[in-house]
């Protein structure tokens, strides 16, 4: 795409988002969106940001992190803190209030950038020591990190401690949620489709071979991890400033991290559209299953678990596998331009290595060859 085209697309996206935001927040004519549906849609947007960003490190680079809720907490608390304690001062410079449309946007930008930087730095602090090592260290360290963050937050009264950050100012709206979801998708997609993405894929497939072709595996893993963490921070800042949805350390434990992992596993590890699909499905599913709880309290979670188990039995590669959903799905299968690597046909044909010949008989053969030459 050329630069002018890119600008046009960006402008068009912004206009559409602003239009939808207007309908979403203020209605259109007689139409008012049901607040319950509105909340589900907002959570879908935030979960898309979480799932797509986690997919960069867990799916594309193949490093197993269980700390996404921790980074979400860091970004969320820092972002919300900035608005609560400095929002009025910052928007005051522009002569507007935090709760105005314009002031809210200014505060949101500050909050998102602050949250992203804080979570990104936390990502570096966790990633640099643990990603140098091969193996499951990242899983263990990120798990520990998430719990440490939670305990720290519980002990900071100015952010609400165990009651949650209820002082938060509700400046998050439809526009920001989906602008950030789209930005996350674009960032992860552009990285994945680039030479950096290929480098991450080599690390996922074989770290020894990746180093052997000159790829600095530690640097690449840390970079992907920090970007992923920063985007989780963005999701946190959005979530914490959503109306009547205060951040609470109890909800940002490792169960939340697992929830995001389930989203990408359900959608298909490594697939961006899969992560979007997984985030959407798993946000809606518990709501749809809510009816079961009226019949028999607790049945909802049983159904939820059952569906996931069935899914893992019948489609372990996730809904989309590694593929991306796109228009080519509508084309005639044989003519589709999906590389074989991305279809399942490639799975069955792997050849197994033959054993190397016996050296002793090989020398004999070589002797003869040498003699006849000499």
């Amino acid at each position, binding site marked *: *795409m050329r630069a002018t085209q*890119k600008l046009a697309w960006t402008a068009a996206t912004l206009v559409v988002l602003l239009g939808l935001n207007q309908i979403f927040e203020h209605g259109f004519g007689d139409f008012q969106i049901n607040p319950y549906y509105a909340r589900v849609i907002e959570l879908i947007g935030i979960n898309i940001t979480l799932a797509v960003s986690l997919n960069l490190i867990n799916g594309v680079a193949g490093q197993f992190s269980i700390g996404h809720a921790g980074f979400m907490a860091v970004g969320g608390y820092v972002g919300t803190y900035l608005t609560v304690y400095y929002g009025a001062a910052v928007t005051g410079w522009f002569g507007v209030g935090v709760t105005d449309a314009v002031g809210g946007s200014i505060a949101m930008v500050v909050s998102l950038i602050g949250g992203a930087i804080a979570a990104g730095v936390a990502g570096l602090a966790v990633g640099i020591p643990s990603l140098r090592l091969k193996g499951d260290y990242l899983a263990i360290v990120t798990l520990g990190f998430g719990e440490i963050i939670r305990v720290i937050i519980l002990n900071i009264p100015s952010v609400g401690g165990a009651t949650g950050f209820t002082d938060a100012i509700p400046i998050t709206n439809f526009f920001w949620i989906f602008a950030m979801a789209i930005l996350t998708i674009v*960032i992860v997609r*552009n*990285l994945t489709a*680039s*030479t*950096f*993405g*290929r*480098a991450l*894929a*080599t690390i*996922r*497939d*074989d770290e*020894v*071979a*990746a*180093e*052997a*072709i*000159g*790829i*600095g*595996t530690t640097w690449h893993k840390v*970079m992907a991890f920090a970007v992923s963490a920063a985007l989780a921070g963005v999701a946190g800042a959005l979530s914490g400033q959503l109306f009547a949805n205060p951040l609470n350390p109890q909800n940002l434990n490792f169960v939340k991290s697992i929830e995001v992992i389930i989203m990408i596993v359900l959608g298909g590890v490594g697939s961006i559209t899969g992560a979007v699909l997984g985030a959407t499905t798993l946000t809606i599913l518990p709501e749809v299953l809510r009816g079961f709880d009226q019949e028999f309290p607790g049945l909802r979670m049983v159904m939820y678990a059952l569906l996931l188990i069935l899914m893992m039995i019948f489609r372990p590669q996730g809904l989309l596998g*590694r593929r991306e959903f796109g228009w080519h799905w509508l084309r005639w299968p044989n003519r589709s331009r999906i*590389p*074989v*690597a991305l279809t399942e046909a*490639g799975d069955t*044909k*792997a*050849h197994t*290595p*033959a*054993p*190397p*010949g*016996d*050296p*002793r008989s*090989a*020398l*004999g*053969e*070589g*002797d003869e*060859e*040498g*003699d006849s*030459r*000499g």
Partner: protein
Amino acid sequence: MASAVTSSAPVLELRSVTQRFGGLTAVKDLSMTIAPGALYGVIGPNGAGKTTVFNLLTGVYDPTEGEIWLRGTRIDGRAPHEICRLGIARTFQNIRLFADMTVLENVMAARHLRSRQRLTDALIGTRRHQTEEREMRDRAMALLRMFDLERHAEERSTALPYGSQRRLEIARALATDPILLLLDEPAAGMNPQEATDLMDLIRRVRDEFHLTVVLVEHNMKVVMGICETVQVIDYGEVIAVGTPEDIQRNPDVIRAYLGAG
């Protein structure tokens, strides 16, 4: 030609390199000097330490003792990716392709180390990103053509037949622009016709890319057919160095292979 080549400074020099794994000495006081443009063979019985030598050269292990020099730069103790950047590329005895990537992507990934892109180029999709992506693809396709793998470009790398996988690994190694190419048993698992073709290919690669090649191989027809110098190691120690003709007559070598008599 031989004299002109051997008179210049060595590409690779190992000085009394020793590698111990706990109580086991896999490589013992090994020295090796390889001239630019050489086709150098390393042979020895199973477990002699040949692969360990390659792992030492590429930084997978740091030698317990000794020094390794590449064209006047000391390389032991450096990370494998740095050593690759300095010009050593390798293949693996037990093929290590990127299984979930296509044939083309396997080779393109090996151009990454020569990329001048910053992260922001990729994020915004700058002109540099676009032209480089095209260059990478073109270079990779040219290599695939040379290795007769062009028509498999979009296939999954591990779906290739075994001999093609070995050739793909060589193509991938060449994509890093090496000055020294290490091949660990490239003929293993190949049929006689493939092995013969491989001999031509290795010679061609050496000549066209102006490389130095070190070949570890159990297939004596291949080693004796293309190497100018052959070094024999047994229990991590050098037992002979010389031309293929010398090596085949050397009593120590015959004893090492046939067992102590």
